[in-house]
């Protein structure tokens, strides 16, 4: 009887763990093939008008398109989002917190955060920005052109990039789904980026 009960307990815990693991909080993208860690990130264009202060913080022009490799950052966190993705909507305040945390830790000169709206026009990106008062730069990708080049990933998806010797970016971390703890995610970013 005792062994049976222990077996029940073990099975139940395995079931619980599996449920959690399967419940990725993201809008799935059939055919998604995220680019692997350790490879170069494509020099995709960043599209859409930017407020001058945001453009200056990234070291790019306020009017695009701007090649992503021209962004002036040691580490660049790229969030692939969509205004139509309920997870991205729910998570928006948390990513704003991540931006604030990067600033509070004195890392804003080294780690930059941007968003690319997969399938979103300039208007749709602006709706999302205004709704959630997003303090960092958001770019549009209305025809999914960038999305196709970066693995047609689900949303939200995070690519953490580090500048390489050739002035391009290498992928050091990928993450599909909602971020629950900005502090934990920032710790992972700095660890993976070797900061």
């Amino acid at each position, binding site marked *: 009887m005792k062994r049976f*009960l222990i077996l029940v307990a073990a099975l139940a815990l395995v079931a619980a763990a599996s449920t959690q693991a399967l419940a990725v909080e993201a809008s799935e993208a059939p055919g998604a093939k995220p680019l692997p860690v350790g490879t170069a990130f494509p020099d995709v264009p960043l599209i859409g008008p930017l407020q001058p202060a945001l453009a200056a913080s990234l070291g790019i022009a306020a009017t695009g398109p701007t090649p992503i490799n021209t962004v002036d950052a040691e580490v660049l966190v790229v969030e692939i989002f969509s205004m139509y993705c309920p997870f991205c*909507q729910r998570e928006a305040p948390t990513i704003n917190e991540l931006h604030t945390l990067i600033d509070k830790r004195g890392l804003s000169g080294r780690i930059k955060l941007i968003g690319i709206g997969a399938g979103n026009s300039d*208007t749709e990106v602006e709706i999302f920005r205004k709704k959630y008062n997003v303090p960092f730069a958001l770019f549009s990708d209305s025809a999914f052109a960038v999305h196709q080049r970066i693995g047609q990933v689900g949303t939200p998806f995070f690519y953490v990039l580090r500048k390489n010797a050739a002035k391009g970016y290498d992928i050091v971390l990928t993450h599909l789904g909602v971020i629950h703890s900005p502090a934990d995610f920032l710790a992972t970013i700095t660890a993976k980026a070797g900061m």
Partner: protein
Amino acid sequence: MRRFAMLAALAALLIAATAGATETNSESLAQNIFQVPHLPPTDSVLAVAVGSPMPDFDLPALDGSRVRLADTIGKKNLVISFVPAAWTPVCSGQWPGYNIARDIFEDNDTTLVGISVDNLPTLFAWTRQMGGLWFPVASDFWPHGGLAKKLGILRSDGTAERALFLVDKKGMIRFIDVHDINARPDLGPLLEAMEKVHAEK
């Protein structure tokens, strides 16, 4: 020891049950979407045009009320978002986006209505798993696709086109986007049309 083992088993079962319950509506929605192949972009012949009167309609809504053209005439501009079918990929991502654009519709004195040819129980379950919507959702199920047929957006397989209509307070159609069924329409052109109609005296 036996008591301890029983307690451990109960605790584990409780944890397992809690883990299952933490799954959100949106997560369930993502897992329950029926994948469809690429379809012909359109499969119908539009029966109305910009400048023509909106055909009359009176459809049942999810909250038990009716959605009628007559209720908006003289009061509000009206946007109708027709989607092809519940539980399909593009449709399931379209209306949740409108959830964060409510202010824009209200600022332009415009009512939004979502319609599909699915029946009410199907629409009820589907929109609940979206996490709810701020705008009314009505069913054009019976007579099947009655309004869709009047508009000329009923496809040969019984689904509707993915289409947007803007109707002004006089009941005239001011904007039409019968979109490629495989892609989500950009909100930009619709919002521009709404602002233009709203700006008219």
